[in-house]
């Protein structure tokens, strides 16, 4: 056992190198696609090339006769067996939704929907035979353009009769959290300022690097399912509910998982179908999607139209905000498709304290890939809208955009603050984060340079973009989720086990896929129990090991799951106390726990947790008055969300002749509360920034007029490469959260939420003297150039 002497004074804040790396940098990994089982068969999916069609016939004869083919299964074959895929969040009680089959039976609603599968001895044989499946379709008109779909011009699901899935609204006057926004707008039209803006949140693809893969082994009493998923616990429950298999007969394992970003927060058709294939053939089956399949059929994100109306007084004090969202569900409702706009609904007011607010949501079906969670899920859209509009307000008032924010933001002494959207922000210090960002950025010097370039008519103009954001994360208080229509809870579970040799096993219900929980949770437990970091082993992602859990998404893992780990560790310390008292022949009141050891106050006598664990293992000296076990479980339901915030500043150079944008510098100052591992936090911020910048500049899922995804490979869907991104300068302020015992907040989504408006604000800022007030995302050179031409004409 490692001695505790060389343990640093505290593990909280220690930039530990990651435990996970050892296997990942040497190739000793267990990705789902690496799993090979005796007799394992391979699955190839046949997918619809049409966005909207009726299946008139499927001829499987040639495929069935091909070499190596074990079975060919169509939707009609499993119509009674496959059940329907779940939507776990009815945002309104009369939410409309089509039945969501894993395999289409007679109607396909998006290009990429599965219509048949081939099970064969090898993957090559399965793929070859899939080409031989002959499907006849009767093409139907697809509903593609979101706003036309909202008007029911073409119906995506004829049986449903409408494309509108749900209409939901929040109104501060009705909810008693503020005034009447219509009155505020009317007043502003009379001597104040009204900004009206239509914003397009383009469709994005999460594009995790590891394509999704599933292996199902049906050969033992308990079926084992390996899946490249963020949510193994969800998958287990839904296999049980959808296919009628007792939950106790299902073990789900998320082994090494190569990224998710919300894209693997799903219960998928492919999971259901691989289970069916294994169940029907009695043999292990594997399905691995290709990248083209992943881009086409794994759920997409964003895709909204936002109609924003901001009211303010003439001096730029905001008096109200009204937002109408039209949101593309795509063809079906996935796990939380319907709730993505809801997760942003309380964030449009951002860091500001204006008195009236109205938000309306219209969820709409189209014949496209279904949408669902993608990093930030609703909150990037909200932050983008308010931060873009605040810049427009600054331009109208004629003041610096930082100044307009300061006029309207919640001051640090005003926390806790009840917002106009009904949330309670526990803590924050926007002044501190902004001051730090301003200094690191060299704000005043850049403004000076900008003025000089404008003056000289430099063809390359400088723009400065600001994003002062907050977000609600750490999903989520179960009571809140229940009140909003979600069927599940938001608690998290952990166990801490003292092994006889002094090692510590930590079991977490979170399911990391790049976030470094093995390292960070080891730090939490080492710190709390006073054991060595190296002596802690973190287990996760296997429903037979981590029996209870609600997995990883929504920047919840540390703020909820990590706090459950601490609660379990605290219980271990409590359970050890009477045992220590017995063995030390002392009164429990005379015992102090410190640095991993119970000591008898005023003496040298004491026992370490490791010694107690061994004594408990032997049991020889226990008198039976206390349970002879130090292990503890804890379930923790958070009291509230956490609200990270920060200030991001972006400088861009825009070539006004070519429309090309280059990010010259990017400063992010984030306040994510107390930090356990600054190295991991910085990495999360970097990755978040990259994805947010990618929305601003590069990425868009594009369909053609027939509904075919034309950005169907990495040739066309432009993930930024290393030369496409700048060097980020990151820093932090630390305002502890008051809603959990360590003062931590979420960090996984912050960078993505904040960065998109910072970049677009910078581009617009560069071009404002040329008459440009907006550029549509992604701000490609052509779009920027076009905006300049239109600006010149206006």
């Amino acid at each position, binding site marked *: 056992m490692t001695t505790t002497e060389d343990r640093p004074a505290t593990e909280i804040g220690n930039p530990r190198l*990651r435990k996970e*790396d050892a296997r*990942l*940098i*040497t190739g000793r*990994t267990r990705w789902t696609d690496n799993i090979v089982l005796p007799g394992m068969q391979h699955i190839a999916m046949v997918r619809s090339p049409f966005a909207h069609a009726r299946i008139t016939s499927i001829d499987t004869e040639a495929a069935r006769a091909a070499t190596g083919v074990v079975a060919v299964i169509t939707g009609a074959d499993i119509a009674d067996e496959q059940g329907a895929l779940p939507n776990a969040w009815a945002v309104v009680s009369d939410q409309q939704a089509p039945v969501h089959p894993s395999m289409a039976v007679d109607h396909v609603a998006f290009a990429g929907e599965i219509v048949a599968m081939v099970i064969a001895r090898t993957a090559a044989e399965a793929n070859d035979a899939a080409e031989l499946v002959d499907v006849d379709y009767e093409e139907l008109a697809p509903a593609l353009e979101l706003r036309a779909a909202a008007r029911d011009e073409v119906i995506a699901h004829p049986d449903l009769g409408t494309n509108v899935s749900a209409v939901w609204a929040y109104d501060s006057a009705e909810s008693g959290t503020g005034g009447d926004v219509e009155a505020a707008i009317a007043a502003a039209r009379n001597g104040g300022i009204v900004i009206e803006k239509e914003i397009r949140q383009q469709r994005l693809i999460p594009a995790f690097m590891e394509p999704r893969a599933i292996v199902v082994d049906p050969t033992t009493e308990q079926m084992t399912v390996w899946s490249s998923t963020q949510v193994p616990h969800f998958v287990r429950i839904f296999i049980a509910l959808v296919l009628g298999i007792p939950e106790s007969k299902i073990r789900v394992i998320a082994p090494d998982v190569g990224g998710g970003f919300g894209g693997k927060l799903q219960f998928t058709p492919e999971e259901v179908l691989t289970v069916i294939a294994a169940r029907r053939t009695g043999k292990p089956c594997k399905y691995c999607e290709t990248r083209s399949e992943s881009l086409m059929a794994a759920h997409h994100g964003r895709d909204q139209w936002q109609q924003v109306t901001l009211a303010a007084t003439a001096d730029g004090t905001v008096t109200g905000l009204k937002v109408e969202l039209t949101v593309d569900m795509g063809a079906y409702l996935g796990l939380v498709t319907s709730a993505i706009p809801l997760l942003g609904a309380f964030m449009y007011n951002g860091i500001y304290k204006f008195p009236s607010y109205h938000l309306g949501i219209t969820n709409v079906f189209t014949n496209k890939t279904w949408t669902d969670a993608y990093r930030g899920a609703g909150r990037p859209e909200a932050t983008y809208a308010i931060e873009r509009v605040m810049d427009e307000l600054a331009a109208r008032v004629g003041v610096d955009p930082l100044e307009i924010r300061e006029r309207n933001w919640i001051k640090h002494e005003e926390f806790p603050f009840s917002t106009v959207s009904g949330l309670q922000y526990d803590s924050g210090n926007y002044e501190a984060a902004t001051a730090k960002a301003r200094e690191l950025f060299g704000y005043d010097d850049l403004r000076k340079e900008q003025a000089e370039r404008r003056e000289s008519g430099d063809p390359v103009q400088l723009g400065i973009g600001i994003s002062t954001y907050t977000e609600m994360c750490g999903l989520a208080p179960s009571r809140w989720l229940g009140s909003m229509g979600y069927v599940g809870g938001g608690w998290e579970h952990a166990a801490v086990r003292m092994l006889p040799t002094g090692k510590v096993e930590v079991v977490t219900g979170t399911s990391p896929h790049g976030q470094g929980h093995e390292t960070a949770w080891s730090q939490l437990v080492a710190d709390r129990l006073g054991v060595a970091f190296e002596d802690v082993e973190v287990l996760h992602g296997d429903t037979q090991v981590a029996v209870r859990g609600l997995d990883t998404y929504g920047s919840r893992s540390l703020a909820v799951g990590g706090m459950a780990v601490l609660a379990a560790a605290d219980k271990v310390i409590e359970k050890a106390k009477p045992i220590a008292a017995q063995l030390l022949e002392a009164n429990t009141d005379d015992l102090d726990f410190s640095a991993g050891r119970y000591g008898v106050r005023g003496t040298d006598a004491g026992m370490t947790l490791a010694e107690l664990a061994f004594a408990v293992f032997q049991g020889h000296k226990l008198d039976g008055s206390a349970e002879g076990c130090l292990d503890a479980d804890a379930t923790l339901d958070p009291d509230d969300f956490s609200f990270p915030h920060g200030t991001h500043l972006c400088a861009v150079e825009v070539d006004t002749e070519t429309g090309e944008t280059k990010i010259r510098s990017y400063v992010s100052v984030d306040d994510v509360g107390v930090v356990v591992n600054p*190295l991991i936090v910085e990495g999360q911020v970097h990755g978040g920034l990259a994805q947010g910048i990618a929305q601003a500049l590069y990425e868009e899922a594009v369909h053609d007029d027939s509904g075919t995804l034309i950005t169907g490979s*990495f040739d066309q869907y432009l993930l930024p490469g290393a030369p496409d991104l700048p060097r980020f300068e990151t820093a932090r302020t630390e305002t502890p959260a008051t809603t959990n015992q360590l003062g931590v907040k979420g960090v996984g989504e912050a960078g993505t939420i904040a960065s998109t408006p910072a970049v677009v604000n910078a581009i617009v800022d560069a071009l404002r003297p040329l008459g440009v007030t907006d550029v549509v995302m992604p701000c490609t050179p052509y779009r920027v150039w076009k905006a300049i031409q239109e600006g010149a004409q206006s």
Partner: protein
Amino acid sequence: MTRITVKVDGSSFTDEVEPRTLLVHYLREQLGKTGTVVGCDTGNCGSCTVHLDGRSVKSCSLLAVQADGHEVTTIEGLSTNGQLHPMQQAFHEHHALQCGYCTPGMIMQSIDLIADNPDPSDEDVRLGLEGNLCRCTGYQNIVKAVQAAAAAGGAQ
């Protein structure tokens, strides 16, 4: 089927392969070299990067038969006697990976990069890694790691 003989991570293998078999599938499925992974089907992502006779190649863009008579090094053959390659060590020390899926390819490409340019600038590294996509890190720590490995003499 075609008979090929390939030296992979120091061991020699003779196998029958279908002529259409990609090198990456030969490595993963016939040799069990699952440290090398597949990330796309268009040669864009670079996750499958290995070395062929000491130079980086995307193993999804090469047929197994093209490796006949050649020497392949994968991520699994990099460390010697339990000692990490300086590039592996640098990726660890600079937190240049999160989910780790792109990492084997990224490390193999980075080694090739500093063999060409033992003192790369930030921009040199970024351009040299243009064919390797990472969705987690935003590349900044990867750039740092590559420069650190170069400074530590990783090109030798």
